[in-house]
């Protein structure tokens, strides 16, 4: 008994989400008779075949001619470079947009931070002012014979112990 050869697990279908510059997508759209996910998929498959054919041509050219001057070689390089360029445009813009959004967020955080710093500084100054005032009053009071305070349970207890009752 033999088992069938193991096939790689490939889902029935898969949807890819991609992003382009609007103007680039308009040009891609112009290549198709109709606009649908299926038509785009057909274009991907057709392009894949073209890419593989061009790859084979490139390999053949590598051994037979100077790629920097050969017209076919230059055309193949132009195709590849332009394809990379178009895919890179949207990615760069997306990254720059993210950078811009983060910049706005940082500005807002910086403003809040500056506000909190001012608040902390104000509190710090007020506390320092109160400490200085308290020290001055205490100093002034030290120069005067203290008047007995109104009895509080705590001061009564203190007097009780200082009189040698224990």
């Amino acid at each position: 008994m033999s088992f069938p050869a193991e096939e790689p697990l490939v889902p029935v279908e898969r949807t890819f989400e991609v992003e382009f510059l609007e103007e680039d997508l308009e040009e891609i759209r112009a290549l198709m008779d109709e606009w649908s996910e299926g038509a785009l998929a057909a274009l991907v498959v057709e392009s894949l075949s073209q890419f593989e054919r061009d790859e084979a041509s490139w390999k053949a050219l590598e051994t037979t001619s100077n790629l920097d001057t050969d017209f076919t070689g230059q055309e193949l390089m132009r195709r590849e470079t332009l394809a990379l360029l178009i895919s890179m445009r949207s990615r760069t813009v997306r990254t720059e947009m993210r950078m811009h959004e983060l910049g706005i967020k940082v500005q807002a955080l910086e403003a809040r931070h500056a506000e909190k710093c001012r608040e902390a500084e104000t509190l710090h100054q007020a506390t320092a002012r109160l400490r200085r005032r308290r020290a001055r009053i205490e100093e002034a009071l030290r120069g005067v014979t203290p008047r007995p305070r109104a009895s509080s349970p705590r001061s009564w207890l203190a007097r009780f112990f200082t009189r040698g009752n224990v």
Partner: protein
Amino acid sequence: MSKERAALVFPALVRVWVRLNKPSLVRFEQFLKRMGWSDEDAVKILLAYALAVAKGSGLTPEQVRDELGAARAELATLRHRAFMADDTIRTLEMNITGFTAALDQFERSLPAMEEERAVLMSLTECLTAEAAGQGVEVTPDPPDPVTSHQSLLNFFRYQGNRPPTKK
């Protein structure tokens, strides 16, 4: 820069969905494995490749050379811009982490400082009342000492048309 302005500065981006069925997917995955590209990059490059092929029809050798040079130059510029943006994003993310941590710390420390001020205020009021009760005269508050650092800050605030720190 506001969001409206950002919309004017950045070119519009559009998302599209490409659905590949099983036979296409098998071929596509083999291609991905061979090229070492990510799924989305591969779909984008292949769609763009179709456009690149279409744009090349009827070009003279000179035009091909010019187009190639222009595309290489733009690609180099884009790579530089993307690199700079990625670098700035890293810095901004670090700033966000730092500011967020500092603000969290303020959330904890400010109430404690406020409480300390309130306690001191109450204590000072009691002492003031006690001094008044004993007929002790307390000298009025002298102006707060201004350090040279604060003085310099005030100078720059003045230069920048900002109000100086009140003392």
